[in-house]
């Protein structure tokens, strides 16, 4: 029960921030894909940078566990591209569709219905995909520090510097 209340509370705060950051609008999501409005990139990279530092600090102090998803190239690449195609048509991702509906965007409702149907179709296709696409290029639960053989903080510092450089560049481009 605490689990469920915790989930609800965290979701409410996240939804609040998504709405305030204005990242849930179709115009913003499509704007990023058209390279005309980088609001969602600024938002996502800010979240990632702060999250990266915080989560790895907790991890180093043994306060948190990582939950790494496996790198199965067949699934991640084909699924990722398919997701992108659907995202370009819909203009909302699963989380932001719910938030957009909360702002009164009715087209997000059609998207949510579509996503529920998509989940059902995937459940039908899963036994077949499990023995084919999901076996292609399975590298297990790998992280960048493992692959590169260097300490995670080196990558985190590099990532943050690159992000700041990108932000500055976006600022000069006014997008």
């Amino acid at each position, binding site marked *: 029960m605490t689990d469920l209340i915790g989930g609800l509370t965290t979701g409410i705060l996240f939804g609040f921030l998504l709405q305030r950051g204005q990242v849930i609008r179709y115009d913003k999501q499509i704007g990023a894909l058209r390279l005309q409005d980088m609001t969602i990139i600024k938002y996502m990279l*800010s979240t990632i940078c702060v999250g990266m530092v915080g989560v790895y600090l907790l991890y180093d102090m043994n306060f948190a566990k990582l939950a790494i*998803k496996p790198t199965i190239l067949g699934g991640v690449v084909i699924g990722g591209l398919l997701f992108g195609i659907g995202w370009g*048509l819909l203009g909302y991702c699963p989380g932001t569709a719910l938030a957009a509906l909360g702002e009164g965007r009715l087209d997000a409702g059609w998207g949510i219905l579509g996503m529920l149907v998509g989940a059902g179709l995937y459940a039908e296709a899963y036994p077949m995909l499990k023995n084919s696409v*999901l076996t292609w290029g399975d590298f297990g639960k790998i992280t960048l520090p493992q692959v590169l053989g260097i300490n995670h903080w080196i990558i985190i510092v590099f990532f943050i510097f690159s992000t700041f450089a990108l932000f500055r560049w976006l600022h000069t481009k006014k997008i």
Partner: protein
Amino acid sequence: MIIKQDNGWSPYFAGALSGLLLVFSVGVAGKYFGASTTFVRTTGMVEKIFGADRVAHMPYFIKEAPIIDWQWMFVIGIFIGSLIAATLFGSFCWKSLPNTWIEHFGENKTLRAVTAFLGGIIAMFGARLADGCPSGHGISGSLQLAVSGFIALICFFIGGMIVVRILYRGGDQS
């Protein structure tokens, strides 16, 4: 309809606070953000009404059982949180057509509804195949420096950019 001008918060600020929220969630509850598994669980619940036996034997619904869990409540919370913020700051309004869409495709609501519905089907099928969406892979995955998170995020954008290039070729109507 007159909508009060609401420019929201800086995306850097809202993004950084979201990052703190995620760190807090991981530290306190051990939960990373994600959204797409919830759609599987919900569809499973709906399908159970029509055929509980069938759902009970489907491997994917065994893997992602049709139950209400932390993430399910999290996703409902996203809806509520956005509704609260939009109401509080006066930016809530019913709209079935986004501005960018109207500029390019006009005011046909059916065309938008069909495109959104089809887009939703493809997006969710892809997200399940990739094992995550922009929350699970894009944010939670890449901040843990997971290789899968970065690859997924890049593929999301490549797929999206291709579609948008086709949809919006030739500039806007007006």
